[in-house]
């Protein structure tokens, strides 16, 4: 991992494949699990969910009673709190707890799925029986005990969010509001959005694995409205990470506020650039949205398995210049998209999707990996116990290239720099995407000349990847709170990129005569 984390640039993303702001055996009968003693001391997750080895063995046995190629139980407890501070008052406050178990059985191409929020034996057995009905064979031999894998340490916290009361969060929100208001007399309104969450996940698989993961999440967003004369402008910034309360240092918050204010005030000077085809410089960090939308989704193996991705027949072929390497990596400490294990209990790690311009690997969940006869890449994710997993991204970024930001700007005769984004989307099959650029700069004769705002950029993922003609050495992950939506499931993700030059893109600016 050569990418450097930059602590304070954020975008609010709200997210079908959309990212926006503000996831054997066959054989004979099975013994009654209730007679089997626990093979290991019960862990805290088992206690939390009120189950033990014997219960899990019994439910797994029921789930695989008509055969299974794969099966898993996904226990999850998710606790989320949010607060909104607007015009100096707390205008909304919410708390929400969701707990349940998802039961999945996979046989061939078919999946039986059930979930229950009642974690009692009769309810779990009833759910398992229904899911099992998708299969028509005989009992698969289910494990007689589950072997706990070592817990990960990518986002260990000392104080869980459940222990942080509203009386601790409000002063932080008010600090943000005051900082923003004091920055410039033109600032009329400040809104602060707070969200924190704690997730406990326990996964038991047909292979006998038991995986547990405690996943914290923190996000704060500031939205600033400024007025000069009759003109009103709005801008925002946010920061998000798998972190705890102490992560919100004054310095970190002040940097976020500075960004939001700067992005807002610059719009009074900014104009929309002329429309047309032109070279586009993607600024380091948030421009990773291009990789996510235009390339990442196309690399998710479910779309390739079905032959609907434009990258379906491209494995081992050249898709970009030799200095382009694109990676999806889950094991980056405390990143919003980070995961110790994926939601199928596989170790989540680093997958090089494009290496030196050559297409190297898709992102696989267990089903797609089996079909391609490969190991899963730990990319099976789900929004919650209510959903079956599918291949998803985690932290997606491009590695450093041979150029510098200065060299890239100097190489552009007439074009734009895209710096902050509000959202993006892609049609995954064809790879056609659009992004909305909130802030950027005009580049003329190799120099940055004027601020621009409110521009759509439109392109085709594989085409844009081929047109990346320069890559700088300033790669970093964006710290904004991006959320990716796909097939109705939302998951937190991170993205990043160094400064890159796309030789030609369609910029939806203004027509000038």
């Amino acid at each position, binding site marked *: 991992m050569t990418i450097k984390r930059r602590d304070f640039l954020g975008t609010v993303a709200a997210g079908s494949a959309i990212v926006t702001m503000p996831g054997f055996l066959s054989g004979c009968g099975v013994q009654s699990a209730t007679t089997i003693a626990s093979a290991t001391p019960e862990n805290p997750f088992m206690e939390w969910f009120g189950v033990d080895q014997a219960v899990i063995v019994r439910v797994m046995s029921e789930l695989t009673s008509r055969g299974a190629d794969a099966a898993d139980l996904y226990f999850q407890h998710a606790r989320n709190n949010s607060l909104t501070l607007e015009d100096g008052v707390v205008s909304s*406050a*919410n708390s929400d707890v969701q707990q349940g178990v998802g039961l999945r059985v996979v046989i061939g191409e078919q999946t039986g799925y059930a979930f*229950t929020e009642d974690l009692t034996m009769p*309810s779990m057995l009833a759910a398992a029986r229904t899911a099992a009905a998708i299969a028509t064979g005989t009992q698969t031999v289910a494990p007689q005990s589950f072997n706990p894998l070592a817990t990960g340490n990518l986002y260990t916290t000392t104080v869980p969010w459940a222990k942080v009361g509203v009386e601790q969060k409000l002063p932080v929100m008010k600090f943000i509001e005051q900082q923003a208001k004091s920055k410039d007399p033109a600032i009329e309104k400040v809104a602060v959005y707070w969200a924190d969450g704690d997730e406990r996940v326990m996964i038991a698989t047909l292979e006998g694995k038991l995986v547990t993961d405690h996943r914290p999440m923190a996000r704060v967003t500031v939205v600033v409205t400024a007025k000069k004369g009759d003109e009103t402008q709005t801008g925002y910034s946010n920061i998000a990470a798998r972190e705890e309360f102490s992560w919100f240092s004054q310095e970190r918050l002040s940097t976020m506020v500075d960004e939001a204010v700067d992005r807002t005030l610059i719009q009074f000077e900014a104009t929309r650039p002329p429309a047309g085809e032109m070279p586009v410089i993607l600024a380091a960090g948030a421009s990773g949205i291009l990789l996510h939308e235009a390339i990442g989704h196309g690399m998710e193996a479910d779309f390739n398995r079905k032959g609907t991705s434009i990258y379906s027949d491209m494995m081992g072929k050249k898709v970009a210049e030799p200095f382009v390497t694109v990676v999806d990596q889950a094991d980056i400490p405390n990143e919003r998209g980070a995961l110790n294990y994926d939601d199928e209990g596989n170790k989540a790690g680093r997958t090089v999707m494009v290496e030196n311009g050559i297409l190297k690997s898709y992102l696989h969940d267990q089903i797609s990996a089996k079909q391609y006869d490969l190991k899963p890449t730990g990319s099976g994710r789900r929004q919650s116990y209510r959903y079956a997993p599918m291949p998803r991204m985690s932290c997606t970024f491009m590695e450093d290239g041979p150029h510098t930001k200065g060299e890239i700007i100097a190489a552009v005769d007439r074009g734009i720099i895209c710096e902050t984004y509000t959202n993006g989307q892609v049609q995954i099959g064809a790879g056609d995407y659009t992004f909305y650029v909130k802030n950027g700069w005009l580049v003329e004769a190799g120099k940055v000349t004027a601020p621009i705002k409110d521009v759509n950029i439109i392109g085709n993922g594989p085409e844009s990847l081929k047109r990346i003609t320069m890559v700088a050495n300033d790669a970093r992950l964006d710290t904004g709170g991006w959320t990716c939506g796909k097939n109705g499931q939302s998951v937190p993700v991170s993205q990043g990129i160094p400064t890159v030059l796309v030789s030609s893109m369609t910029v939806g600016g203004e027509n000038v005569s």
Partner: protein
Amino acid sequence: MSVDLTNRALEAIELAKAAGADEVAASIRQSRDVTFEYRDGALEKVKDTTSQGLGIQVFAAGRYSSHQTTDLNAARLKSFVAEAVAITKALEPDEFRKNHSRGIVPGQTRY
């Protein structure tokens, strides 16, 4: 059903009052939805979902908010309710919502 749903709702009301709520309404639900889809005589899709949940609506010091949980564990319900009341008190007073005796109806709780 190992969890006595009605008692949990009553407990939630008592817990909220103990935490300083002036008025509380609690609603509780459990439902199961099973779907089998056949095509040409063969089972194509199965889905079985059992949902349960407790919602509370809290009035405290002229403020109102509503909260939901699907986790009916007794110890954790206590902290959930305490937090719900605490964040209600942090809100701006809601002068347009009256907490007269019939002002809060369990059916209003949204999941």
